[in-house]
């Protein structure tokens, strides 16, 4: 039941973002806001990985969590270098606030679990979260980014996100 709640929370984020893209009232994001959403989305997955490292003893889960930590940190470093170069300060906005609020609920739900139940909840959430983030990057952030280098950075991280999703789905099969 709690798993369902976790997934629902993530899918609400996804549908919020996807819905925002499709609806007439798209959130208009400036480049500093796009950069903030991108950084926050990566930080959230690093936070999930930190919980996994704390709570899981499963080798596959720990390895996946370590890869998420390293890869998302690499993306944040690239984004930080770019905003510094462009002299842009990432700006908080409704999309990044929504992502952070949803992540708090998910983290609370993950922390309440242990053992196999935790492993399953973590990897299920990784699958759902990466789907949501891919949707947000492709459907919202890339179209909204005006600066060519920022747009290119976002396009450049999509293959990594899709590989993470595929990897998460592979690990997920072990817990069915």
């Amino acid at each position: 039941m709690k798993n369902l709640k976790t997934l629902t929370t993530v899918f609400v984020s996804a549908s919020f973002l996807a819905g925002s893209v499709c609806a007439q009232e798209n959130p208009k994001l400036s480049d500093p806001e796009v950069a903030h959403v991108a950084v926050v989305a990566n930080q959230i997955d690093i936070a999930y990985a930190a919980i996994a490292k704390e709570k899981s003893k499963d080798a596959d889960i720990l390895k996946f969590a370590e890869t998420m930590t390293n890869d998302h940190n690499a993306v944040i470093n690239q984004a930080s270098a770019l905003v510094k170069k462009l002299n842009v300060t990432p700006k908080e906005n409704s999309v990044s606030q929504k992502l952070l609020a949803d992540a708090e609920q998910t983290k609370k739900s993950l922390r309440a679990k242990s053992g196999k139940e935790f492993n399953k909840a973590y990897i299920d959430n990784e699958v759902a979260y990466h789907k949501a983030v891919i949707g947000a990057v492709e459907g919202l952030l890339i179209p909204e980014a005006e600066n060519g280098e920022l747009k290119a950075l976002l396009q450049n991280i999509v293959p990594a996100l899709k590989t993470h999703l595929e990897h998460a789905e592979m690990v997920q099969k072990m817990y069915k």
Partner: protein
Amino acid sequence: MIEIGRPVIFIILLFFSCTPASKKDSEAKQDSVEDDIAEPPRQQDEPKTHIVEIKQMKFEPAEIKVHKGDRVLWINKDITNHDVTELSKKAWASSPLSTGQSWSMTVTQSEDYFCNLHQVMKGKIIVE
């Protein structure tokens, strides 16, 4: 007294400049891209070096055909770390390669490999 003309000196210098530094071909090595790319001119029957780039979460080309004794050089041009690991038993593996790092090995048989950090990334070496 034998006089050595300029063309002879030039040929001698050219010979020494083209002599490769001694390297143990049986050992895989990790090095900077610049060091590995600076290959000496190759004669027809010498082993070739085949380059596989790692970018956008893929090995490119994902499948290569080589001859026994050829060297394969992987260069990480991606934003994240990757490694190169034998698929079935992890019989051989590079250490994690950060952006710009490369690793090479001499091929003695056909191999399937993957990135152990991103296990869905796969490649194949076919010895012809």
